[in-house]
Each structure stands twice: as C-alpha cells, then as structure tokens.
C-alpha cells in the first residue's frame, strides 16, 4: 500500500459543550477517539495520515476548561487556556512569573494563540523517527531507531532512557513542576489530582505515552499552590532557532533565599529524558548553602550524575550542567536571575 503524507482522512467530529459530555463521548468511542485541544500536535499526525482516529472530540467549545481562577490556595488554570492567555495574565506574571516566561518561549505567536497549557504539557514526543511514522517502540513497534550504531540522536535523551530515547519537548512542564503544580484529571472513575512531576511517565512505565492519561481520561485543570508565589525564578531554553523550535535542554527553578543563602529550591530540567527531570538530590544538596559559584558547581556536577549520552548528544551533559549552574547563581555578567 503506497504511503502518502498529505490530506487529512475523513473522521467524525464532536464538539461537546461540557466536560461531562466529552467524557461520555470518550467512553463511548474509547480508543477510536482522539481528544483535540489546541490541535497543533494532532494536526501533524492527521495530515501525515500516521494516526487516523475515527472520531475526534474537539474540546474548543467547553467554556469550563478555559480561564484562570483563584482558589483557596493559589490559582487554577483551565487546561484549555491558551499559552497567550497565560503569558498575558497579570496575576500569573506577578506571582508565578516563570510560567509565562516558559510559555512565551514555546513555539510561535500563532501557536501560542491557539495552543493550550494542557496541550503543551501533554504533548507527544518529537523524536524525528517517531514523528516520521517509523514503527518504533513509541509507535507500538519493537525497536528504537534513534539509539542504534548509526542512529541520529542529537536531540535525544541522556537520562532515564528505557529502550526509547525520546525526550519530553514541553517548555511549560518544567516550569509547572518547579511551581509544584497539581494536575486535575477527570477519569471515568471520577476526579484525581496528581503532582505535576508524577503526571509525566518514562518509557519504562509506558513506552507509548508521555503522561499518565489513559484513554477516557481528561486533563481539566492545573492548580498552582501559592507555596512558591513570588519566589526567585529562573527559566532558560536553549534551542537552535530563536522561535518555533524545541528545547535542546531547558531548565526551570523556583528558589526562596534569605540573603544570599538558598532556603529551599525546586529545580527541573527538560529535554534530557522522556519526562521532565526534577533534580531532588540537587535541591537537597544546595538547600542552606550560599548562592555562589561553588554551590552552583556542586549542583551542576550532581545534576548530570548518571547521564548516559548517545553518539550525538554528548553536548547535553555540559549544557545541562551549565544551565543548572545558571539556575543556582544566575548568568554571570547579567542581572542575577
């Protein structure tokens, strides 16, 4: 059968108005259904005719999934809130500045106008073999093409790889983990709330999924506790092009310091594993230490411990090291972050 990567195949479209209706549809069509948020990840799959659902459930009409609400402890952001809305939201900018900073570095203006926070954190891997429709582990196959003697893995994982070496491409995910955000998930069995860092899974757990979401589940909102409101934030994304490009590595940190001493910190790196990597060991090690080059060096060395680079992504080790350094001590020569 000849292959063609153009023209979206026909499917049935549903545009529920409420989350309940969406869940009904999801349970009715199960694995046949594809849930569409902003759609920017989905369109690639559809147009390349690689993933071809019979039914698409478009969440765009569900009002309750949009907008930012203040809740008892912190804020709740609807999963369908666009990245632009997050970037422009005055209160988020003021208290949780790292999130808009990360969101603004994602993709391009048009994509941020359409792409949603829920979609950005839940997006699929960008491994070019996988996206090219090669039948790899992540596509349900029995091989990883990127981790072979001739594999092209410049953009791939240096940590926690298990057969598949793809990385998580999200920019907002590490920021949310740094903010200790909680993901609100509706399942057929009711609602559950999970820590952002537990929302993401590696290939060892499920090689075909990036998150805990199973068919029938729906991410409805993201809660950010006030724990880290107004903390000292650092976010940096290193990429090839200055717009519309995925992170080679990005780093997100939230730090509370008294004077020059680090009281507590949350430190997350993405683009190095199939899930954002929270560096708990580093967090513990630098707590109570002065915010200086020495501490930064210590953190950096600790961070890359156990890194297993592939042929073409060895540079990610020094890159991750340096970004962690910067997250601790800021960029020398610039205002401390």
């Amino acid at each position, binding site marked *: 059968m000849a292959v063609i990567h153009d023209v979206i195949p026909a*499917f049935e479209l549903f545009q529920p108005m409420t989350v309940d209706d969406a869940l009904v549809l999801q349970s009715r069509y199960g694995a046949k259904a594809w849930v569409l948020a902003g759609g920017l990840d989905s369109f690639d799959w559809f147009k390349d005719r690689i993933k071809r659902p019979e039914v698409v459930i478009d969440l765009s009409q569900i009002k309750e999934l949009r907008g930012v609400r203040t809740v008892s402890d912190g804020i709740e952001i609807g999963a369908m809130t666009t990245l632009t809305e997050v970037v422009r939201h005055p209160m988020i900018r003021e208290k949780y500045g790292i999130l808009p900073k990360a969101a603004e570095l994602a993709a391009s203006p*048009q994509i941020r106008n359409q792409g949603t926070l829920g979609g950005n954190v839940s997006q699929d891997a960008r491994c070019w073999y996988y996206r090219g429709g090669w039948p790899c582990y992540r596509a349900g196959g029995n091989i990883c093409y990127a981790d072979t003697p001739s594999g092209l893995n410049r953009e791939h994982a240096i940590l926690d790889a298990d057969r598949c070496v793809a990385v998580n491409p999200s920019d907002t995910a590490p920021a949310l983990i740094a903010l200790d955000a909680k993901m609100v998930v509706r399942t057929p069995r009711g609602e559950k709330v999970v820590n952002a860092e537990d929302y993401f899974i590696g290939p060892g757990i499920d090689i075909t999924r990036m998150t805990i979401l199973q068919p029938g589940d729906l991410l409805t909102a993201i809660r950010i506790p006030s724990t880290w409101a107004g903390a000292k934030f650092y976010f940096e994304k290193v990429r090839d092009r200055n*717009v*519309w490009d995925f992170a080679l590595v990005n780093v997100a940190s939230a730090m509370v310091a008294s004077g020059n001493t680090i009281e507590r910190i949350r430190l997350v790196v993405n683009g190095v594993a199939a899930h954002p990597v929270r560096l708990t060991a580093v967090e513990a090690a630098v707590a109570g230490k002065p915010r200086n080059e020495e501490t930064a060096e210590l953190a950096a060395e600790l961070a890359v411990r156990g890194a297993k680079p592939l042929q073409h992504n060895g540079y990610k080790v020094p890159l991750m090291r340096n970004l962690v350094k910067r997250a601790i001590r800021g960029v020398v020569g610039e205002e401390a972050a």
Partner: protein
Amino acid sequence: MAGNESADPGISNQVKISRRDIIKGVIAAGAVSSTSYLFRGSTLLAQASAPGSVERLITLNVNGQQRRVDVMKQETLAMTLRYKLGLTGTKIGCDQAECGACTVLMDDVPYYSCSVFTHTVRDKKIVTIEGLAGADGKLHPVQQGVVEEQGFQCAFCMPGFVMSAVGFLKTNPNPTRAELAHGISGNLCRCQDYDKILTALMRGAEHMRKA
C-alpha cells in the same frame, strides 16, 4: 469577494484566445460553484446523535460577510477559505503550522488557518488579507507601509506577515523594532527580506497610530 472580482489579466487574455467554456471557468480564485467539490463528503456514515455532534452546513463570518458553506468535519480553515470561498490571498506554504503564510485573524487574533478546523471557528469573526483594505480600495495602514517601503520580495509570505502584524499591532500599537520582530516571528520568509519587511511594517505601525 476580492478573489472573485479580480479576473486575472493573464487569464482574461486567454478568454480572448479561446471561446470554450472551460476557459471561461478558469478565473483567478475560483467561484465557489467551480470548487465546491474540492472535498467529497465524509466517508463515515451519518453519526449517531450524540452530544456535540456537528452539522456540515455552517455559516462563517468572513471579512464582515456571513458566508454559508458546506464544510467537511476534517476540513481546515485555509482550505475552506481558498477552495470554497475563493479567498486565495491566504497562502498555504507548509500546511504544518510552521511558516505562517496562511495566517488570518480570528477576533483580531492571528492564527495559522492551515491548522484550525473550520468547524471550530463558526462563532468567530474571520479577517483575511482580502478584508483589510476598505471597500473603496483604500489600503490598510500596514499595507500602505509595505507599498511605501517596497517590503517583501516574492511576497508569497506577505499576506501572512501582514495579518500577523495587524494582529500584533492591535495589542501593541507602538512597538520597538525588536518587539515587532517577536510579534511576527511566527512567519517565515525564504527571500529572507526580513530587514526590509521590518522597516515596512514599522512604517505601517506608524500609519496605524496616525489613522
């Protein structure tokens, strides 16, 4: 529509050359009638009535007009605009939300129309490049800026850039050159005339502020 009224000079010339109907049919940016079969119907059978099931025949608000149009479930806005409404000013450069040539405004916000399902924008006000100039043909200030500065080269990316700029300038009417560059950074130009494009669009912003 702009598309329909502007019979292409090249083509009208051919109309002289030949009298056969098929050529009369060749008009720049075809009439809806000639293109309504770009896509055939959904291959799926009529769906069971379910919450959120959608009708194919919808009304779109495009450039201030209500347009009735038959839209497939999987149809993108770019295809609807180009092949069903004859608005070919909206270009398809990559069809993958990467180049911005298909950028249109929806409620004043720039979107990649190649990556929006037409059914999701029923309730939005859509403006394409054809809808910028006044009915009297008076150019939009941003268009004016482009003309004055001879912005762009092959101009395939131009409609998208202009729509992005107009959308951005509505939120930030007085940007620095760098801010404008960020605002329109979702658009690609392979003639790489970026420097002149920025000059032209900065001039457009200036006109917009005066207007």
